[in-house]
């Protein structure tokens, strides 16, 4: 690098500007479709470049830039450090896949305004970059809210449907409330003499009370975006409403920006952590995780299911962050690094496989116009590419070796198993419960994903038209395959990924996982080889070796005669597609076991019904326990307030008169 001075920050900035330019170009394009498609592909190239550039910057010292924009006295500060770089890598990778897919996806143009969508899509990408680069409160808020705003427009891009409009509304309101909490948090954090740059905040002194207040506000603010309980309600509404590539971006990347913000404030801007924060975060994370997975199990809409699954995954990440804080507060930096790495790794994983799965649902919707699990099935036959890609995503999200989801869960479990070294006995007692919750959620997640994949892709088609569904086109396949490759490679070479993540941990905690990561490229050994080790490549090689050996043996030793016949099914003669287990049926056991969690409305047929009909709706209890009462309260207050405004001039004059007299008496009394 002696002759080329390469600095990543301007390059990253350039990519963001490039995306903005693409968006504007998209707005001005003619109705000519192909021109529009090229824009998304060009955007994908930008994503790849971003990932490479940011990966390059991972280990570097932070670089900063100031733009001559922003408020007077508070110009836009940008900073690229390892934490931001890691999330930029995540963003770049996910965007590459999603934009490639979008190239093939945003073609029909029948329902949405292509040009406006293209604009918002690329602005959304750029806004996320700016969120990650921001180094002062104002820039951060501007980028953060712009991100919310454009994603709101994307969510409502098909706004002819009332439920999509209300989903978008709910989303933006929750996002805005969260943003206000973040604003308050910055207000608490601000440095000496009102410094709102992050640099000033880092060096500010504050009492434990204010530090805790700031952390809790950050938890609420970023929780609203990430979907921590009880601010998760928008997720299952907004994700299904958005076009699938947008759902993928929101779930895969945007939620991570909230995690980024939490880490930025929790570890970077607040230099000292307290164990109680960690316990709060841990508990909140676990509850969110369980809640998400249980609701995912009973969904009948495939995108809602994935949205609830996102809540689960975010809860897992939060739990890991909580654990990291607990370790950090007890001066155990190596273990904190382990937990933090698990969190970050899971962020990356979730970005890859959740994007992949949302894109797969996009392909399915594109081909079938169906979102309800009750009307899908058997798509593995007409859509083998999509089904194959979705299978990888399903196995990855279910946390199975040798794919990537397993690695992060494995690291997190290792961190949990190391927590008995904590000096505080009360904390130690939390550990088993927390571990139990974690593994339970992981296991139910596998259940959920089997349901998802099985009902959508396997079995017999539940609608006749599904047989003629078309597979993804070349661009869509490219996007899917890119993400599949990401899942597989991150799963098989976790040590490489951990090397990158380790820089982040080092940057935030002052010490990373250290030599433990660098031991051997084949084995992940978070603490020491005796303690634990895992080598996904060997596991895969083992499975493939045995499978091929057995296959060859069987092939050579025995005849391979195969005959096709109707399914046996214990000899039942008529087998229609309606006799398969439905999505509701699949969720039924979970519903029954965890009944107190749900709010279930049943419509039971009576014995005398001519056309008996059974219907059950499962709803979020929190919606009724929290959101609706809140809305009612606000409406009631509005009712009281509006009584002031009754249209009688005399009374209005009385108001003025009373105000005047009250003020006069007030100042006379002073």
């Amino acid at each position: 690098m002696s002759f080329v001075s390469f600095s990543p920050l301007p390059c990253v900035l350039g990519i963001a500007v490039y995306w903005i330019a693409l968006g504007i170009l998209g707005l001005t394009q003619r109705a000519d479709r192909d021109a529009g498609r090229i824009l998304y592909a060009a955007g994908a190239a930008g994503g790849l470049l971003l990932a490479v550039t940011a990966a390059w910057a991972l280990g570097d010292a932070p670089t900063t830039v100031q733009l001559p924009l922003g408020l007077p006295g508070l110009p836009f500060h940008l900073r690229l450090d390892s934490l931001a770089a890691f999330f930029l890598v995540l963003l770049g990778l996910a965007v590459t896949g999603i934009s490639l897919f979008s190239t093939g996806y945003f073609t029909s143009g029948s329902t949405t305004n292509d040009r406006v969508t293209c604009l918002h899509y690329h602005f959304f990408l750029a806004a996320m970059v700016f969120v990650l680069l921001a180094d002062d409160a104002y820039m951060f808020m501007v980028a953060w809210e712009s991100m919310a705003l454009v994603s709101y427009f994307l969510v409502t891009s098909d706004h002819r449907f009332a439920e999509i409009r209300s989903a978008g509304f709910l989303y933006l309101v929750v996002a805005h409330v969260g943003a206000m909490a973040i604003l308050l948090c910055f207000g608490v954090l601000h440095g000496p003499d009102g410094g709102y740059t992050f640099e000033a905040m880092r060096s500010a002194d504050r009492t434990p009370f204010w530090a805790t207040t700031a952390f809790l506000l950050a938890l609420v603010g970023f929780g609203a975006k990430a979907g921590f309980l009880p601010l998760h309600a928008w997720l299952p509404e907004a994700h299904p409403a958005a076009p699938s590539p947008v759902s993928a971006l929101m779930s895969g990347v945007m939620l991570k920006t909230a995690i980024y913000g939490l880490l930025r404030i929790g570890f970077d801007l607040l230099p000292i952590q307290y164990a109680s924060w960690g316990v709060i975060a841990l508990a909140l994370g676990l509850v969110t995780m369980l809640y998400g997975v249980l609701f995912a199990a009973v969904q009948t809409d495939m995108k809602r299911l994935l949205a609830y699954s996102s809540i689960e995954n975010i809860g897992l990440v939060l739990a890991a962050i909580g654990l990291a804080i607990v370790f950090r507060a007890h001066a155990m930096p190596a273990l904190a690094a382990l937990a933090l790495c698990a969190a970050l790794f899971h962020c990356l994983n979730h970005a890859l496989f959740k994007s992949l799965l949302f894109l797969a649902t996009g392909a399915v919707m594109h081909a079938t116009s169906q979102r309800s699990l009750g009307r899908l099935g058997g798509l593995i036959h007409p859509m083998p590419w999509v089904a194959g890609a979705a299978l990888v995503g399903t196995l990855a999200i279910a946390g199975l070796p040798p794919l990537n989801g397993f690695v992060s869960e494995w690291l997190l479990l290792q961190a949990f198993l190391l927590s008995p070294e904590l000096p505080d006995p009360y904390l130690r007692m939390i550990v088993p419960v927390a571990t139990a919750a974690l593994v339970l959620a992981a296991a139910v997640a596998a259940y959920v994903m089997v349901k998802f994949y099985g009902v959508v892709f396997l079995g017999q088609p539940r609608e006749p038209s599904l047989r003629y569904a078309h597979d993804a086109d070349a661009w869509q396949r490219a996007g899917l395959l890119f993400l599949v490759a990401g899942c597989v490679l991150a799963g098989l070479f976790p040590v490489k990924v951990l090397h990158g993540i380790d820089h982040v941990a080092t940057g935030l905690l002052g010490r990373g996982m250290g030599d433990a990561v660098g031991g051997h490229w084949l084995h992940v050994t978070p603490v020491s080889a005796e303690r634990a080790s895992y080598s996904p490549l060997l596991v895969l090689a083992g499975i493939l070796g045995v499978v091929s050996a057995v296959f060859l043996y069987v092939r050579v030793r025995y005849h391979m005669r195969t005959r096709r016949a109707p399914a046996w099914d214990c000899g039942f003669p008529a087998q229609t597609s309606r006799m398969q287990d439905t999505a509701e049926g699949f969720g039924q056991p979970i519903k029954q076991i965890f009944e107190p969690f749900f709010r279930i409305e049943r419509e039971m047929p009576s014995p005398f019904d001519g056309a008996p009909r059974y219907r059950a709706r499962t709803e979020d209890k929190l919606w009724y326990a929290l959101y609706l009462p809140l809305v009612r309260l606000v409406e009631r207050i509005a009712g009281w307030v509006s009584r002031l405004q009754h249209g009688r001039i005399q009374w209005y004059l009385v108001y003025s008169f009373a105000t005047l007299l009250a003020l006069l008496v007030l100042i006379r009394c002073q």
Partner: protein
Amino acid sequence: MPELAVLLLLPLAGAVTFAFLGASARAPEANAAFSGFTALAAVVLAIRVLADGPQLAMRDLFHVDAFSVFLVALTALVGFTTSLFSRPYMRNEVVAGRVGPTALRLYHAMYQLFVGTMLLALTTNNIGILWVAMETATLTTVLLVSLYRTPASVRAAWKYFILCGVGIAQALFGTILLYLAAERVLGGGGTALLWTQLEGVKDQLEPSVVTIAFVFLLVGYGTKAGLVPLHNWLPDAHAEGPTPITAVLSGLLLNVALYAIARSKVLADGALGTPLAGNLMMGFGLLTVVVAAFMTLRQTDVKRLFGYSSVKHMGLITFAFGMGGAAATFAGLLHMTVHSLTKSAIFFAVGHATQKAGTQVIDEIRGLVHTSPAVGWGLMLGGIAILGMPPFGVFAAEFLLLTTAMSAQPWAALVLLVALAVSFGGILWRVQAMVFGAPNLKPLLHRPAILPVFVHLGLTLLLGFYLPPFLAAWYREAARLIG
């Protein structure tokens, strides 16, 4: 200063012209031309003040400093863009048979007169003349509010007239008391009402008189600014008048009223040496924000809805000025600017939307973005901007205000945030309903004026990202003057 003369005489000339020719075929264009040249004069004046500092003219009768010239420029600019918007708007009204030639003459004449009185109020050095200008502004708009002669509009105008008339009378009493206090220091004759004189001796004024004077001034001009509970004229007046008038009422008149309050506060602070004036203003501001926020939840008329939004923003600005200090006042001034720009842009869009829908009822306006994407997106972006979403400038102002409030008055910041969240929900829900969804609107004969909408929104957007140095210096100077 010739530009000052042009600035003040041109609208007057316009008013006289239109009193006779206001219904002619080219009157809308002429209206825009008058406003355009006025705006030009304002720009020239602004440049001069920027270069040479505060100006006095005509035997100290006129005084233009950074604070007033910034509002002069804003007023003239919004006056100009509104006249552009009013061109197709009023033509459509004529086509719809809602206004006749007489009404059109009245409209154009009063429009010019209104802008003229606003400019007079801002440039005069005499707080008595300031009062006269404010009263005249009320009188000019009162007939415009009842222009359509529907029962509702007559009611609204009557309410406007009585409430503002009574309110402004209180302001006169305050002015008299101020004169009483000043006279003891400056002696009788013309100088005791001159701002430049008053400002110099403000710490010698008798506190007990100034306290009472300030209360009367606050109640008086506060009525015009729409502070709760004195605001009751505002929603109706916003709803029933022609939309260009709504735009200037909301974007200009309220600002000028706040300008008068801010000037009064300077004197009160100087005389009292206590934060009493600021505390009163903060109290009014908070109450206004909270009540207006909750009121937005109950609105079914789109113009009333945004009328309440104006009330809320006036509360925020009053709060900012009340808090005082360089940062908060800066935020207040920025807020005035962006609110004027955004709110008038919203009313432009709303005006076209209501003409298309033939109603102002929110529930009957649907799918704007389908029938006319520009108006739809204009309304949507305007709504988003006025709700304080970045990257628009309103957010910049709110950011400054809230962060300052959090250091100085944390409890108040919390109240403000709750109120902002409530009004966010209330307004977004309704804007979304109008802009999105399946369309039900009909096309118009005269093409809507989209340019003013997007010019305003573009300026607001720019202010969210970038405050030109001269503007920032200007605000700082003005904040120094009134902070």
